[in-house]
């Protein structure tokens, strides 16, 4: 066997790599490059992961976190080590004295007590006065003055979010912020919807709407803290707020009046609320309320809940009177191009002519005008109790109160749809589509308006079969013609006719009462044992049932 041939054949079998460094195909330079490349890849990967993991991790203690970042950067410059060394050398300080210098500087920087340098030096380092002055001057010139300048600079705090996108915060008064970022006007401040002064529907608790409400209640212009306090605690909308929401609203209003800066996240853009926890509000949930709802993505109520993972309470529009509920979702007539000046003007709640809100307002106005007039009101079953009480007071007052209640309660209460077990989905509002429900509400609203127009006879009818003593007496007085044959009135229909002169009717009733023995006459209505019992004795208001 020829070994040379074998070697050659083996040699031929080995396929040297390109740029081969030899017969074994191993090139050190190439491997170095390859490792460098891998190292770079690993480094980048680690850096990305690190940024994500420690995006908002605490880096400094709270005291330093509150300092100006540029001042902190300056203080953490490694060159300062040699500056301190140089000052110590110049002043003849030992290592202990030298080590006090950075401590003093940090204290001054944190407390921002720029004039306390001399005092601190005297307290910490025991030296001759002239040396004190020299050290103070050197520190002032080289370090303290620079920190002071940096600390007083306005700054934008950068926060890196978990997604790696940096957040930039600026400090602006709310008026300036609204001018710069009009979207902020739509930011939700509180959790519950609010009722504006001249608006029939409930509005979103956005910054713009709250400012409108504030100006509507307290007038435009500057307000004192007492005025703001009054608004925050006594206004119709603000008195319902919880402590956190009130604090947030207070910040907005204070900034509006006193131009105090608020933190604005430029990437939102949104106002960043820093609510101070108090004993009352232990649980603080800021981010939820900081969520923005853009006016352009106004969706139907259900879609709003589905599309945004906000808690329902946040944007739950309280029950709008169904009779006047708009078919379309609640829309604010707000355009993003609207100028910020409009926020500070007295709100004009009238929607523009031609908009759907304009028609809704018309309907409400019609109802408000026409409903108070009727004297016969058909109240729903769930408003019986207050109406019964009304019967005891003067009819005029009763009519007025019933009107108010019908206006307030009738629309809120669900329409009394007759239940048909055969077709539950046809008339049941729970199973009806929005369109059908809306049509039904519209029809009912129209019917109510027509009814209220027609029912001007001055009769008040109650659906309750129960009667008070006063009602019975009234009925007996009214239906007591001296000689005329008594017309049998159907018992089902119980009407109380308002006397033309309420005073006279009351006097009459009183005189009848005095003539009668007692209005509280108890008589068993049914039962076989009743026949065996004799009539109870009635003395004044005492009833003797012993027989």
């Amino acid at each position, binding site marked *: 066997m020829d070994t040379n041939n074998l070697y050659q054949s083996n040699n031929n079998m080995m396929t040297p790599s390109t740029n081969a460094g030899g017969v074994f195909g191993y090139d050190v330079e190439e491997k170095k490059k390859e490792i460098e490349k891998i190292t770079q890849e690993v480094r980048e990967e680690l850096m990305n992961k690190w940024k994500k993991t*420690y995006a908002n991790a605490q880096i400094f203690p709270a005291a330093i976190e509150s300092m100006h970042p540029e001042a*902190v950067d300056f203080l953490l410059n490694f060159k300062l*080590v040699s500056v301190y060394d140089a000052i110590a050398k110049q002043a003849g300080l030992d290592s202990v004295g030298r080590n006090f210098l950075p401590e003093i500087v940090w204290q001054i920087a944190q407390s921002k007590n720029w004039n306390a340098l001399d005092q601190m030096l005297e307290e910490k380092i025991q030296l001759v006065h002239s040396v004190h002055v020299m050290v103070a001057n050197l520190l002032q010139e080289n370090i303290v003055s620079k920190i002071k300048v940096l600390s007083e600079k306005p700054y934008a705090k950068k926060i890196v979010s978990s997604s790696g996108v940096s957040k930039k915060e600026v400090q602006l008064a709310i008026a300036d912020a609204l001018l710069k970022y009009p979207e902020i006007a739509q930011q939700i401040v509180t959790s519950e919807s609010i009722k504006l002064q001249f608006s029939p529907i409930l509005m979103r608790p956005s910054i713009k709407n709250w400012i409108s409400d504030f100006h509507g209640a307290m007038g435009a212009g500057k307000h004192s803290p007492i005025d703001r306090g009054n608004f925050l605690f006594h206004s119709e909308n603000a008195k319902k707020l919880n402590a956190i929401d009130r604090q947030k609203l207070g910040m907005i209003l204070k900034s509006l009046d006193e131009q105090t800066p608020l933190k604005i996240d430029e990437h939102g853009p949104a106002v960043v609320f820093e609510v101070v926890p108090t004993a009352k509000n232990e649980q603080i949930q800021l981010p939820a309320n900081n969520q923005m709802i853009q006016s352009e993505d106004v969706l139907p109520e259900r879609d709003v809940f589905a599309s945004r993972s906000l808690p329902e309470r946040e944007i739950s529009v309280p029950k709008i009177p169904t009779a006047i509920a708009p078919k379309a979702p609640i829309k604010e007539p707000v355009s993003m191009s609207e100028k910020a000046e409009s926020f500070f003007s007295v709100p004009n709640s009238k929607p523009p002519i031609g908009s759907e809100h304009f028609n809704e307002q018309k309907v409400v106005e019609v109802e408000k005008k026409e409903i108070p007039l009727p004297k016969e009101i058909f109240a729903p079953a769930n408003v019986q109790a207050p109406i019964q009480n009304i019967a005891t007071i003067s009819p005029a007052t009763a009519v007025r109160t019933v009107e108010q209640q019908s206006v307030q309660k009738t629309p809120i209460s669900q329409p009394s749809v007759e239940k048909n077990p055969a077709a539950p989905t046809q008339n049941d509002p729970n199973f009806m589509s929005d369109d059908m429900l809306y049509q039904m509400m519209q029809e009912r609203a129209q019917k109510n308006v027509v009814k209220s127009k027609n029912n001007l006879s001055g009769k008040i009818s109650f659906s309750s079969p129960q009667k008070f003593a006063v009602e019975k007496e009234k009925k007996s007085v009214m239906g007591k013609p001296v000689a005329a044959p008594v017309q049998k009135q159907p018992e089902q229909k119980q009407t109380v006719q308002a006397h033309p002169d309420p005073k006279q009717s009351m006097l009459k009733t009183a005189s009848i009462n005095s003539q009668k023995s007692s209005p509280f006459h108890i008589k068993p209505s049914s039962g076989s044992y009743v026949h065996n019992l004799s009539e109870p004795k009635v003395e004044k208001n005492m009833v003797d049932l012993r027989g």
Partner: protein
Amino acid sequence: MNDNYSDNILNEFVIPHIAFPQDTIQQKKILAWHIVSLKKEDLLFSSAFAFSYQGLIAGINTVQIEYFAKNATISQKKELLISMLADYRMKEVFEIAKLMDDDMGENISQNQQRVKNVQRYVFDNLPVFQF
């Protein structure tokens, strides 16, 4: 092959005190040389526990410590400060630095001075490391 490389490199970044054995002072010196060669950002990848190893502290340079002070997490800073305040650890750190100087040649105290400066920087800026 590439996977092995990348794993090793990853370990050297994240757990250098394990990737480089730390049984003898010579091994500690090797870790110190590795740390000195790192970029300033790379030191942040090390686990907090790594800062309790003398070899790692002996390798920290001035650029790295400044970046570390400005960007490291609480746990990393805490661990470094604990090590810096422990005399017995710092004694060994200086020994490692001396060995490094010896590697560079005679009468060289470059690494010892570096460690001293790093320690002084940490003590000067104690409010940043104290939590």
